[in-house]
Structures are given as C-alpha cells and as structure tokens.
C-alpha cells in the first residue's frame, strides 16, 4: 500500500499540488475528470444551468452577448461575452437549441477582463445566452442569432 500517496491526497496542499500539475498538463486523467461532463452533456438549458450550479440567474443589462444578428454559416458563428459586473469569475456561452446547450465556459482569474470572444457552431436559429458568475451570484443575458445554414452535420 502506498501510504504516502494517500497522505498527499488527503491534505489540502496535496490537492493544490495536483491542481497545479493538472494545470501544467502533467496528469491528463485528473484534468479530464475536472471537465464538467454533466454540464456539457446536459441537453436542455435548465439541466445545464443546474449542472453549472446556476440557480435562477438574474437577467442583467451589464452582461452582453456579442455576435451577428444573422449568421450565414452555422459552423462558424463569432460569439463574445462582455460583462461589466465587477468580480466576474466565470463566463459561459450557452446555445438554447443546440443538442447540448453549453458551448464553452471560461474561468477568469483575477486580472482577466470579463470579455471573451470565440466561435461556436449552431445547429439552427437560437437564443444564445451568456451566463456570468460574480461572487456567488449568476447573471444572464441573451441574444437571438439567426442561422441560415446549420452547423451540425447535414
């Protein structure tokens, strides 16, 4: 029995070391386990929000979804989230009508601005939600993006 390993795992510092190693890409398995499978595999918006721990996020005008009104190609839709709420620590992009609502989530360490842009796939015209966490509270904003050509197979 490898007692040392158990002791390391038990202590808080052990967890911190593991976290650091995982961040450095040294322990792929641990890191993969950290991926929020439940949230990414949730089908509906409600399930996704639950898996993310976001209970009844408040609509906020300080959060903005940026993106085109009409996307010609659903395979590449530029989407961004901009939050003016101080202390935003997490930003997630959710697409209502996609097979799995959650597209991506971003943890923002202190100093990183709550302004992230990426590109997502959209199966069809849908509301795109930005979910933002600041402190213990969740906020949300939405924007409808029309898709002329679906991005999920076909």
């Amino acid at each position, binding site marked *: 029995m490898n007692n040392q390993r158990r002791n390391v795992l038990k202590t808080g510092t052990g967890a911190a070391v593991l976290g650091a190693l995982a961040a450095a890409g040294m322990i792929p398995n641990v890191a993969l386990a950290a991926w929020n499978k439940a949230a*990414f595999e949730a089908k509906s918006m409600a399930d996704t929000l639950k898996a993310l721990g976001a209970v009844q996020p408040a609509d906020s005008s300080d959060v903005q979804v940026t993106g085109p009104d009409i996307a010609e190609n659903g395979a590449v839709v*530029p989407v961004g989230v901009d939050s003016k709420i101080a202390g935003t620590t997490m930003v997630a992009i959710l697409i209502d009508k996609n097979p799995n609502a959650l*597209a991506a*989530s971003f943890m923002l*360490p202190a100093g990183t601005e709550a302004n992230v842009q*990426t590109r*997502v796939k959209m199966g069809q015209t849908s509301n795109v939600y930005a979910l933002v966490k600041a402190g213990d509270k969740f906020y949300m904003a939405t924007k409808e993006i029309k898709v002329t050509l679906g*991005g*999920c197979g076909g």
Partner: protein
Amino acid sequence: MSTKPMRIRASVKDGVTEVKALIAHEMETGQRKDANGAVIPAWFITELTATHNGKPVLVSEFGTAVSKNPYLAFRFKGGAAGDKIAISWKDNKGESRTDEAAIA
C-alpha cells in the same frame, strides 16, 4: 496523430494585454455521419488554459459546439512586451499540445 501548431498573438496596450489565438483542431461533434452513414466519433478540445509567465490568465472548458479550429480572444491586466504567453489544450482523446508566444 500529430497536431498542428496554434497561432497566438498577444499585444499590450495601456497595461492591458490582448491575446488572440487560433487553434488547429477538428472539433468533431460526434453527430455527423460519414458517406457510409457511420457516425464520426466526437473529437474535441475539452480544456484549454492560457498562462502569462506561468500564471493562469484563462482557464476554459469547451464542449462540442466550439467551432472547428477554435478562435479565442481575451484580455487581462498586466503583461509587458517580451513576456511569455503559453496556451495548452487537451482533447477528449487525451491528446494535448502547448504553444508559446511572446507579447509584442
């Protein structure tokens, strides 16, 4: 399968560093079918971390809905010309890759 390098560009202005990255990855959703009707298995980046001189500035998790060859842009406070920006990702097949760039 070997992976292609990602393109990272970082520039600092008024104390804020803007990082733009273009990552080469298939990002297969697992919902498409090939010509024979067989489902193409999902293959996508699950985790991506960006660091500035070794300190994380963005930790993200991706689902299958992120587009092929993902693009990412974000800003953080601090950073100086010549500082190192490193981005590493890991996909659901366990492959990973890290690339570095200096802030211009």
